[in-house]
C-alpha cells in the first residue's frame, strides 16, 4: 500500500512540474508576437505616448519573466486577465462557455465508453474470428478518418437528405428531452466515431494481454466456460489497463471538440478558442490553451494512476 501511495505521489509531482513547463511554453510562444497588445488595441495611428501609456497599464513594459509570473499568479488566483476582443474578464467569458463543453464531453463519454468496451471485449473474446477481423479493420479505418469528414457526412445524411436532425446545435431555453437529444445527436455521434474506435482497439489489446496469462489457462483447464472465464477471471484483472485505455482515448475529445464545435456552431470553449485565434485575443487564447492542457494532463494522470492501482503486484504490499 505504501509503495502505491509513494508512486501516486511521485506521479502527482511530475504532473505539477509538467503543467508548469507547459505554461512556460504557452506563455513564451504567445508573447513572442512581433507587435504587442498595446499596438494592436490602439491601431496604427496611435501616438507613441498613448501606446507607451497603455503598455505601462497592461504591464507590457516589464521584463518577460515578471510578466510570466504575473500571468501565472492571475491564472492560479482565477483571474487570467481581460479579453481583448470584447473587454470582458476572461474568467466570465470562459465561465459561460465551459459548462457547455463539459456537457458535450460528458454525453460523448456516456455513449462511447459502453459501446467501445462492448466492441473491445467481444473482439478480444473471439480473437482471430471473422467478427474480430472485421471489427479490427473497421476500427482501424475509423481512427484515421478526420472529424470534419465524419461531421460533413453526418450533416449530409441526417440533416440534408433525411431531414431528421438539425444541422446546427442550438438548444432552446426550455428544450424537451426530444429536442435536447436531437440537437446533440450529431456532435456526439461525430465525437464518438473516432473515440470509440480508439478505445475499442486499446481495450481489446488490454484484454488480450490478460487472456494470455497462465491463470486464464488454469481456469480454462479446470473446466470454466470461455465466456465465464473472460467475465469473472479476466475482466476484474483488466480493469486497470482498460480504465487507462479509456482515459487516454478520452483525451482525443480535446482535439475533436475543436473541429466539432466549429462545424456545428456549438458555443463551447473550443470554438471560443478558435475565435480567439482569429481575433488574436491573446489573454483569452492563453487561458483556453491552459484549460485544454490541464484537461489533457488530468486524463493522462487518471490513466497512469489507474495503471498503478490496477497492478496486482503493488496491491498487496
Amino acid at each position: 500500500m505504501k509503495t502505491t501511495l509513494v508512486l501516486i505521489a511521485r506521479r502527482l509531482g511530475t504532473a505539477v512540474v509538467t503543467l508548469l513547463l507547459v505554461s512556460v511554453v504557452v506563455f513564451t510562444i504567445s508573447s513572442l508576437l512581433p507587435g504587442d497588445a498595446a499596438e494592436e488595441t490602439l491601431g496604427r495611428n496611435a501616438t507613441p505616448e498613448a501606446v507607451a501609456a497603455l503598455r505601462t497599464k497592461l504591464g507590457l513594459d516589464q521584463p518577460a519573466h515578471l510578466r510570466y509570473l504575473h500571468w501565472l499568479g492571475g491564472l492560479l488566483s482565477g483571474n487570467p486577465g481581460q479579453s481583448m476582443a470584447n473587454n470582458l474578464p476572461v474568467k466570465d467569458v470562459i465561465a459561460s462557455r465551459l459548462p457547455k463543453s463539459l456537457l458535450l464531453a460528458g454525453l460523448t463519454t456516456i455513449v462511447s465508453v459502453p459501446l467501445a468496451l462492448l466492441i473491445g471485449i467481444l473482439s478480444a473474446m473471439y480473437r482471430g474470428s471473422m467478427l474480430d477481423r472485421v471489427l479490427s479493420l473497421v476500427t482501424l479505418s475509423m481512427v484515421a478518418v478526420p472529424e470534419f469528414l465524419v461531421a460533413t457526412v453526418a450533416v449530409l445524411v441526417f440533416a440534408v437528405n433525411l431531414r431528421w436532425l438539425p444541422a446546427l446545435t442550438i438548444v432552446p431555453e426550455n428544450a424537451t428531452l426530444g429536442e435536447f437529444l436531437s440537437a446533440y445527436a450529431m456532435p456526439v455521434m461525430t465525437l464518438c466515431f473516432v473515440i470509440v474506435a480508439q478505445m475499442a482497439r486499446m481495450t481489446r489489446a488490454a484484454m488480450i494481454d490478460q487472456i494470455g496469462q497462465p491463470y486464464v489457462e488454469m481456469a480454462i483447464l479446470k473446466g470454466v466456460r470461455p465466456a465465464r472465464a473472460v467475465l469473472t477471471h479476466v475482466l476484474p484483472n483488466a480493469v486497470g489497463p482498460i480504465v487507462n485505455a479509456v482515459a487516454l482515448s478520452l483525451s482525443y475529445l480535446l482535439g475533436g471538440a475543436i473541429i466539432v464545435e466549429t462545424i456545428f456552431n456549438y458555443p463551447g470553449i473550443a470554438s471560443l478558442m478558435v475565435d480567439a485565434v482569429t481575433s488574436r485575443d491573446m489573454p483569452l487564447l492563453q487561458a483556453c490553451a491552459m484549460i485544454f492542457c490541464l484537461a489533457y494532463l488530468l486524463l493522462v494522470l487518471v490513466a497512469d494512476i489507474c495503471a498503478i492501482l490496477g497492478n496486482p503486484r503493488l496491491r498487496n504490499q
Partner: protein
Amino acid sequence: MTQAAAPIATDKAVATSGLRRAGQFLMALPLSGMIGLGIVVFWLLTAVFGPMLAPYAPGAIVASDVFDPFSARNLLGSDYLGRDVLSRLLHGARYTVGLAFAAALLASITGTGLALTAAVSGRWIDEVMSRMMDALISIPSKIFALVMVAAFGSSVPLLLLIAAITYVPGAYRIARSLAVNLNQMEYVQVAVARGEGRVYISCAEVLPNMIHPMLTDFGMRFVFAVLLLSGMSFLGLGVQPPDADLGSLVRENISGLGEGAPALIMPAIAIATLTVGVNLFIDSLSRSRRTMGEV
C-alpha cells in the same frame, strides 16, 4: 570475356533477388495491407505528378455554373467559383502529402537523433531532455497549432514547423525506449568494451536496429500530420488562399453541402483514403505494435 561478364551476372543476380524479395514481401502482405500499399503508392504518385496531369490551372474558372456534378468537361464537377475540382484536387494533394511527409520526416529524424543523444549521454542530459519532451507532449497537437498560428500567423513554413515540433516528442519517446533497450544488448556492450566512441556506437550499432520500428512510427506520424494539417486548413487557419490543400478544399466548398456537391465530397474522400490507406498498410506490417494513441 568471362571476367567481364561475371560482374554483370552478379549484378543481375542481386537485382533479381531484390525483386524476388520485394515480391515475397508483397505476397506475404494480407489483403488489407496490399490495398493500403496500393493507396499509398497512388497518393505518392499523385503528389509528385498530379499537378502535371491537371487538365486546367487550379485558379482558372472553367465551368459555366458552380457546384456542377460530374461531367465530361469537369470530371469531378466544379467548385463554388466554377473552378475544376479535379485540377484543384491534384494540386491540393501535393500540399497535403508533401507537407505531412516533410513534417513527419523532420519529426522522426529529430526525435531519433535526440533519443540517441539522450541514450548515450549521462543521466542528467537524459532526464532534462525527457522532461522537456513530456511537457511538449502534454500540449494537445491542435492546441499547440492554434497558439502558434495565433502568435505568428499562418504560412506554409510555419505549418511545417508546427507539425514537425508536435510529433518530435512522440518519435523521441519510442526511439529512446528502443535505444535504451538496445544499449543493454551484448553486442553493444562488446562495442563499449572495445573502446568505441559514443558516436560510433549510436550510428553503427544502435541505429541500424531501430530503423524498422522507426519507419512504422514514421507512417503513424504521417497520418497524424495529415489529420492535423487538414484540420487546421478546414478551420481556415492552415494553408492560405490562393494555395489550397485538401482541407482547404473541403472548407471553401462547405456551402455546397446542401446539394451534396462533389466539390465538397471528393477532397474529403481523398483525405480519408490517404490516411486509412497508410493505416492499413502500417498495421499489416506490424501486427504486434498497435497504435497506442497519438503520442
